[in-house]
C-alpha cells in the first residue's frame, strides 16, 4: 500500500494495514535515532506548528524533537501565548498560521473533534496530539509499537487497560489499534469509569484487576485524574490504589515477560508502585523512545502528502 493521508486524526479511521505501515515506518526511524547523524532532510524547509491549546510539555517536546530530526522548522504556540485566549476562533487562528505557510499543524485541544474541524478546512496536514476524551493517536501507536517490539506480535495478545477509561483518549486510541490488529483488549476499572459501550467493539470488561492479572501479556496503566475524584466518580486515590493499583504484590503475579506500560506522568503509589515502575516488567522509558520514532514516522508520512508543489 501507499500512504495517502495528509492528516492523522483518529486510529478509529485507519485500517489495520495503515497502522502496520506506520509501525514499520517507525521502526526505520528508530534506526535513525541510533545513527551518528540523527537527522534526515525529509522535511527540510517545511514548517511545523505545535498548536497546544491544552498544555503539555512531554508530548509537545516529543513532537518538536521529531520535527527537528526531520529537519523541519518548528514554531510552538501554547494557549496562553496564542490569540485564542483573547477570543480568536480556532478557525481564524489556524487560517492565520496557514497564511504564514505552516505545512503541518500538531494540535492538542480540549474539545473532541477540533483536529477534524481543522483538517477539513486547511491545506496543511493536521496531526492530533490529543483532542479532549476522543483520541491520542500517536500515543496509541507508540504503545502498540512497544508491544510489538518487545513481544514480537500484537495479534492474540491479552492487553489490560486499567483506570479511567471513560474520559481517556489514550484508552480509546489503544482500543482501536489493538482490536484492529487482533489483540484481545480487557478494560479494567471501577464501573463508574468503564463504559459498557466498548463491548460493542469487542473489548472485554472486568472490574477486578486481581481476577484477570495473571493472564495479561500487557498491563497498560492510565493516569487517574484528580478531577474525576472531585466529580465523584470514585471515592479517593487510596481506595483506587488498593483496588486497581499495580503494587509490588500484584506485580509478582504477572506472567513472566508481561509488560507494564504507562503513558505518563505516573503517580507513584496510585496507579503503580515505584518499585514496579522501575522494575523488570516496566517498559515505560521505552515508550518515550518509541514515541519519538512513531512521531517521526507520522510527520514524515503526513508531511510528505501535505506538501504542495509551489505553483
Amino acid at each position, binding site marked *: *500500500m*501507499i*500512504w*495517502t493521508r495528509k492528516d492523522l486524526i483518529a486510529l478509529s479511521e485507519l485500517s489495520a494495514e495503515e497502522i502496520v*505501515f506506520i509501525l*514499520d*515506518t517507525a521502526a*526505520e526511524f528508530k*534506526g*535513525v535515532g*541510533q*545513527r*551518528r*547523524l540523527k*537527522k*534526515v*532532510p*525529509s*522535511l527540510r524547509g517545511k514548517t511545523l506548528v505545535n498548536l497546544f491549546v491544552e498544555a503539555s510539555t512531554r508530548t509537545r517536546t516529543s513532537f518538536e524533537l521529531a520535527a527537528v530530526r526531520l529537519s523541519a522548522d518548528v514554531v510552538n504556540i501554547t494557549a496562553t501565548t496564542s490569540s485564542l485566549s483573547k477570543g480568536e476562533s480556532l478557525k481564524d487562528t489556524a487560517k492565520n498560521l496557514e497564511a504564514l505557510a505552516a505545512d503541518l499543524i500538531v494540535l492538542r485541544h480540549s474539545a473532541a473533534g477540533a483536529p477534524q474541524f481543522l483538517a477539513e478546512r486547511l491545506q496543511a496536514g493536521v496531526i492530533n496530539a490529543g483532542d479532549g476524551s476522543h483520541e491520542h493517536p500517536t500515543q496509541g501507536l507508540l504503545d502498540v509499537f512497544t508491544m510489538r517490539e518487545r513481544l514480537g506480535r500484537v495479534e492474540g495478545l491479552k492487553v489490560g487497560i486499567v483506570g479511567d477509561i471513560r474520559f481517556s483518549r489514550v484508552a480509546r486510541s489503544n482500543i482501536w489499534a489493538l482490536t484492529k490488529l487482533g489483540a484481545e483488549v480487557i478494560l479494567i476499572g471501577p464501573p463508574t469509569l468503564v463504559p459498557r459501550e466498548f463491548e460493542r467493539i469487542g473489548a472485554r470488561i472486568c472490574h477486578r484487576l486481581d481476577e484477570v492479572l495473571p493472564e495479561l501479556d500487557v498491563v497498560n496503566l492510565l493516569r487517574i485524574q484528580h478531577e474525576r475524584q472531585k466529580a465523584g466518580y470514585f471515592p479517593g486515590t487510596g481506595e483506587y490504589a488498593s483496588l486497581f493499583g499495580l503494587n509490588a504484590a500484584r506485580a509478582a503475579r504477572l506472567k513472566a515477560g508481561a509488560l507494564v506500560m504507562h503513558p505518563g506522568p505516573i503517580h507513584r503509589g496510585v496507579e503503580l508502585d515505584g518499585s514496579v515502575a522501575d522494575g523488570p516488567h516496566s517498559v515505560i522509558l521505552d515508550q518515550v523512545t518509541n514515541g519519538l520514532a512513531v512521531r517521526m514516522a507520522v510527520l*514524515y*508520512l503526513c*508531511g*510528505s*502528502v*501535505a*506538501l*504542495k*508543489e509551489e505553483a
Partner: protein
Amino acid sequence: MADALASDLGGEGQIFLAGIPTRGVPLARRLKEELGSRGLAAECGAVDIAMYRDDLGMRGGVAPLRGTELPIDLDHWTVVLVDDVQQTGRTARAAIDAVLGFGRPKRILFAVLADRGGRELPIRPDYTGMELSVRPGAKLRVRLAEVDDGEEGIFES
C-alpha cells in the same frame, strides 16, 4: 564491473557495498561474491534513500520504507553505492547524504549496472556495467532473479 573494482580497490581495507533498494541490494550482494572470487573481501548491505529524497510531496503518496542495513559507524570505510539504473543522479545524491549520516567514510564510489544518460545533477558513476541510450520517456527495467519473475535482463518499454 567486478574486475574494475577489484583492480582499483585492491589494497583499500574496509569496503562496504551499499545497495540502493530495490535492485541495487541483490546487485551489491552479487558484486560482493564476484569480488570475493577475485580475492577481495567486502561487506554488503542496503541504504534506503526515501528519507533523503528531494521530491517528497510530488508523488501523491508515500511508499513503504525499504530498510537500511549499514554498519553504524562508517568512518574509514570505502563505501561503494550500487544501483541498477542511473538516470538523473538524484537517487545517487540522496544515497550520498544517507551514507554521510552514518559517519565520515574515507571514500564514496558509485557503481551502476546501466547508465541511461539524462543527468540532472553533476554525479557520474565511477563504475558502469553498460551505457545505453534510451528513447526519452521510455522506461528501463532491470529484472533480477532475486526480486523479479521471468527472464533476467534489461528491458526497455
